[in-house]
């Protein structure tokens, strides 16, 4: 059904009419007033632990209105990473590093239209990314409908850290070598619609296209040794080839989402969400999520949510290639996998009578347990000793006998929000 809708929308026959219809609706409807986002500040601490990785750090955000038409936002975010994931265990050495991200953004409100601009810079020792974004949002039908359009451009610079000295691989890199750049364009269309006095729905589409260096410079693929073609397959040794040069340099993806929120009779909210995704690499996925939010008395709010996600593998993904191909990948993110999340959150209102410049505030604590199950990405860590000189490489039969990889992650957030 969704594929038919997508073909219909994107077909050359109908797309001019649909664009015309959208344009006409935007320019012809009676004007009403929209509002700028609230003035607020958030100080968040996040923690992720799972699959051999520990990532934590702060995120500080502040938003302030200036006059009646402008609102500005600044955000500072840090990921402190200590990583010994399965990829690291199999092909490299554990490492620590830090990613720092800054965002500045501004909104301009004119009657029922809000225009937004933002810039984000993200820096880590082997990756730099700049993101430029603009958006326009328009309220119509007496504020029952909001249509938003957005465009984002990413410019990434990818480097490879090299480790030298004695021992050959220490935890600190001695130099960082540029391996390539990647550009990314994101196009968003979003529609929010009030259906009844208790029910609101949201439809979203995002198309993303990438070009450039799209693989991880540290990862390798496993290939049955091409120098040993005469042996029976199961006795051939496994060789390792860096992914670089074996990855597509373009990618285009489409994501459609529908989500709804319903106000229950006893002051609680029920949210449901479905998202479908497909891309030119052959990955297709479905996401389902439900969430219930329940306030208790005046000050407490509890939230429970469940999320289920599954995807197919990229067409050029394999845990082991029997022959060398033009395109090859063994990134677990491109494997067939499923993700299941069960989480909860609690918040408590503070500063109810106001204090200093603050009108009110709240304290939040959330916890999520995420289970990741990989269908065709096998746990090959028993063979990591191949890195040592003189150690025999695993055979194809040994490599295939490994078990599918899975792990559980714990995600925690604690944050304080104040409004002023």
């Amino acid at each position, binding site marked *: 059904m969704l594929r038919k809708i997508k073909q219909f929308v994107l077909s050359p026959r109908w797309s001019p009419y649909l664009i015309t219809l959208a344009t006409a609706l935007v320019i012809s409807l009676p004007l009403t007033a929209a509002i700028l986002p609230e003035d607020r500040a958030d100080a968040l601490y996040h923690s992720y632990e799972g699959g051999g990785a520990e990532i934590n750090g702060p995120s500080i955000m502040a938003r302030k209105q200036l006059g009646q038409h402008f609102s500005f936002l600044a955000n500072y975010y840090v990921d402190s990473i200590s990583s010994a994931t399965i990829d690291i265990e199999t092909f490299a050495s554990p490492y620590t590093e830090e990613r720092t991200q800054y965002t500045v953004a501004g909104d301009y409100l004119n009657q029922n239209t809000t225009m937004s601009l933002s810039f984000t810079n993200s820096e880590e020792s082997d990756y730099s990314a700049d993101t430029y974004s603009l958006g326009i949002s328009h309220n119509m039908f007496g504020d029952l409908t909001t249509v938003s359009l957005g465009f984002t451009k990413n410019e990434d610079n990818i480097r490879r850290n090299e480790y030298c000295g004695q021992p050959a691989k220490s935890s600190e890199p001695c130099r960082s070598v540029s391996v390539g750049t990647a550009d990314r364009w994101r196009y968003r269309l979003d529609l929010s619609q009030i259906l009844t006095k208790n029910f609101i729905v*949201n439809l979203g589409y995002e198309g993303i296209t990438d070009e450039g260096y799209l693989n991880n410079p540290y990862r390798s693929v496993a290939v049955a040794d091409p120098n040993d073609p005469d042996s029976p397959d199961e006795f051939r040794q496994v060789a390792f080839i860096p992914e670089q040069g074996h990855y597509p340099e373009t990618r285009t993806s489409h994501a459609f989402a529908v989500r709804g929120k319903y106000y229950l009779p006893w002051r609680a909210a029920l949210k449901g969400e479905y998202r479908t995704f497909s891309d030119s690499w052959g990955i297709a996925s479905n996401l389902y999520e439900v969430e219930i939010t329940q306030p208790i008395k005046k000050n407490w709010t509890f939230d429970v949510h469940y999320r289920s996600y599954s995807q197919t593998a990229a067409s050029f993904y394999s845990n082991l290639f029997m022959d060398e191909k033009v395109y090859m990948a063994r990134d677990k*993110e491109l494997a067939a996998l499923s993700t299941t999340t069960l989480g909860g959150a609690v918040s408590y209102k503070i500063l109810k009578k106001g204090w200093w410049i603050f009108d009110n505030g709240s304290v939040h604590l959330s916890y999520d347990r995420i289970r990741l199950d990989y269908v065709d990405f096998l746990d090959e860590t028993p063979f990591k000793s191949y890195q040592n000189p003189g150690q025999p490489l695993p055979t194809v039969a040994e490599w295939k006998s490994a078990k599918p990889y899975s792990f559980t992650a714990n995600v925690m957030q604690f944050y304080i929000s104040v409004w002023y």
Partner: protein
Amino acid sequence: MRIKAITVLLCIVVSTTACGIKPWVKPYERANLADPIMSFSPNPVSSAYYAHVYEAREGARGAEGGGGGGCGCN
């Protein structure tokens, strides 16, 4: 093709501005929708973090929402 599109555009502009569309949920009926628990993204910093956690570990991306808005609860 272009002439047809312009014709459709003009017809829609004329017809919609002539009759207008009356909201079927009146502003005074939106108290429940204006409740903070009805926001799709009540805490943008937290939503951005969740999106980052999943995008780094799953192949899918985009249309995460979190844009908020849409309630029209002024």
